[in-house]
């Protein structure tokens, strides 16, 4: 299965198909985590530095927090990932009780684009950079964290990983991953930082304390 590009590379490098691979270089090791409380606090603090709204939340206060968020952001339509955790906390019921219209997370892109709020979980969290790592599936469509103008991620402390290394070890076989580090931003006009150029304008992260 040779092709002209590969052949030319081999000619230029003086290699053949039989040439053995040189030794693989070393990698800087993963950072050492601090206490789990410190890691959680660092993660939330980094999200805040990026203009996200991040807080610890007791599971009992989810409804109140949703109510406050809906009022603050004038939320009328929302789409929610169909996952066990979000079902367990009855997110969709809460939204309905607040009079918010629910759009299926598998609805068309045109319908999802009309949503004010997209609610997801995360699969991993990186404290050093304030990063949410999201996988993708039919229950967890990628557009829910992208098309609505507000993104809320409801997460748990167990998802914290010390560094990229651990996330990559666990997730490298996944067909799609997205790292989300703060809300969508640009500085393309006169270097003025503007949030929400294409993706969500506002990012909320609620870390649920153990129930």
């Amino acid at each position, binding site marked *: 299965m040779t*092709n*002209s*590009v*590969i052949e*030319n*590379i*081999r000619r*230029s*490098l003086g*290699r053949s198909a039989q040439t053995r*691979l*040189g030794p*693989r*270089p*070393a*990698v*800087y090791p993963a950072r050492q985590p601090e206490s789990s409380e410190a890691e959680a606090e660092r993660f939330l603090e*980094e999200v805040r530095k990026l203009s996200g709204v991040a807080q610890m939340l007791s599971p009992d206060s989810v409804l109140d927090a949703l109510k406050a968020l809906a009022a603050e952001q004038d939320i009328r339509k929302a789409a929610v990932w169909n996952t066990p955790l979000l079902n367990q906390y009855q997110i969709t019921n809460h939204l309905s009780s607040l009079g918010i219209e629910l759009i299926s*997370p598998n609805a068309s*892109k045109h319908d999802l*684009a009309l949503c004010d709020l997209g609610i997801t979980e995360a699969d991993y969290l990186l404290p*050093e*950079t*304030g990063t949410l790592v999201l996988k*993708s*599936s*039919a229950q*967890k*469509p*990628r*557009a829910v964290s*992208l098309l609505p103008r507000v993104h809320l991620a409801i997460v748990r402390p167990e998802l914290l990983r010390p*560094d*990229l290394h651990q996330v*990559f*070890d666990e997730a*490298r076989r*996944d*067909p*799609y*991953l*997205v*790292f*989300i*580090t*703060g*809300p*969508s*931003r*640009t500085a*393309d*006009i*006169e*270097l*003025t930082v*503007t949030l929400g*150029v*294409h*993706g*969500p304008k506002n990012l909320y992260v609620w870390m649920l304390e153990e129930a």
Partner: protein
Amino acid sequence: MSETPTYIGFEAYTKHIPPGIPAAVQQATGRFVGGRAARVAELPHWEQLRQMASDIRLHTIENLDVYLERLEEQVMAAGGHVHWAATAEDARQIVLDIARRNNVRLAVKSKSMATEEIALNHALEAADIEALETDLGEYIIQLAGTGPSHIIVPAVHLKKEEIAAIFSEKLGIEAPADPVALTRIAREVLREKFLQAEMGISGGNFLIAETGTLVMVTNEGNGRMCTTLPDLHVAVVGIDKVIPDWELLTVFLKLLARSATGQKLSTYTQFITGPRREEGEFGPREFHLVLLDNGRSSVLRDPVGREVFKCIRCGACANVCPVYKNVGGFAYGWFISGPIGAIFAPQMLGTPAARELPYASTLCGACAEVCPVKIPIPAILRHLRRRVAQGDEIAAPTMPAPIRAAAKLSAFALAQNWMYRLGARILPLVMSIFQRGGWIPWAPYPLSRWTKIRPLPKFTAGFRQWWGRR
């Protein structure tokens, strides 16, 4: 600007730099230099990361055939299509064929240097396919019909009043001269286009050979739109973007955003392995990877010059370059500017076409200091100057024999402590013969070539004596 240039007249271009460019570019570069410095200071192991990044890139370049074949195998195993493009024309044809086969009328693009390199937009438009840039800065310059002045903020040379005028004219709306309002207008206009487009076109920051994964690093979210909403995703990526495996990638994700914009990570980093797996998760039905050679495989022949392929396109070298800061991106005449452009273009286009670029530098070395993958840019510039002077095919330095012998002798003498000390004592005695007052107005050949122009200052004391007195 986006077509492959046949000659880059750097010096002539510098005489036609639009007014306001140096000030705007310096404001941008100043911002990025400060941001980068703050991030670098937070990582005590920065220098180790740079060394590792350099080692990994060199290893990958030297074994490129192996990793590219692994990559191809893995992309196909993940259900993606791989296309090899030996030339820019091949690459354009491949993308056009995919677009025609799927009746594409609108393609949305996320910022990509590879598609600039092959002038893809022109080819698509010639085939009646609208190709829309969606990165805000790229969108603005596409509307304005100009080229990029900076790798990260391509429209930085335009004032908000000018952008408002462009929006008002091209979009037929009343656009206020306010960055937030202009951004909102672009969001609304482009959102419609994202939903409508049949094809998304992107570049890629890295390709992971281990799993056949395309890594895209962006801030605005337009890259995610292009890879999430249309039914087709075509990524055009240079063959130099391969990284062997995920673990090695950790090094580059730590270096890239910190070096480019002074962020710890850019807002969105996507890892895309093949097309969508399930209905309802979004993402494209078909994923195509176009691997672009366009001369790279031949550039690999030059063991000095090929280090240019270590580049991860952060732009840090341009931000610190005293030449770039005064001329901006246009003067470099191709899609890639600054010090990296000055060593990339001559190798890709050949030194006859880009022979002025290796001289578009003061060799101050600031670029090499900040480069996250330690590309020895000044050394490559000097190497390319020699290629300009002596032709691209020369094998070894060809200085006159006496000069080579003298250089060898002095290198030997300076390395011996006693010889250096002896020389430092003899030199003032020899010099005193020619000294007149504090100056040496004439010295015998070959030093006379200097003294003909200006006198030499008197040799006062050896470094060691001077140091001892301090």
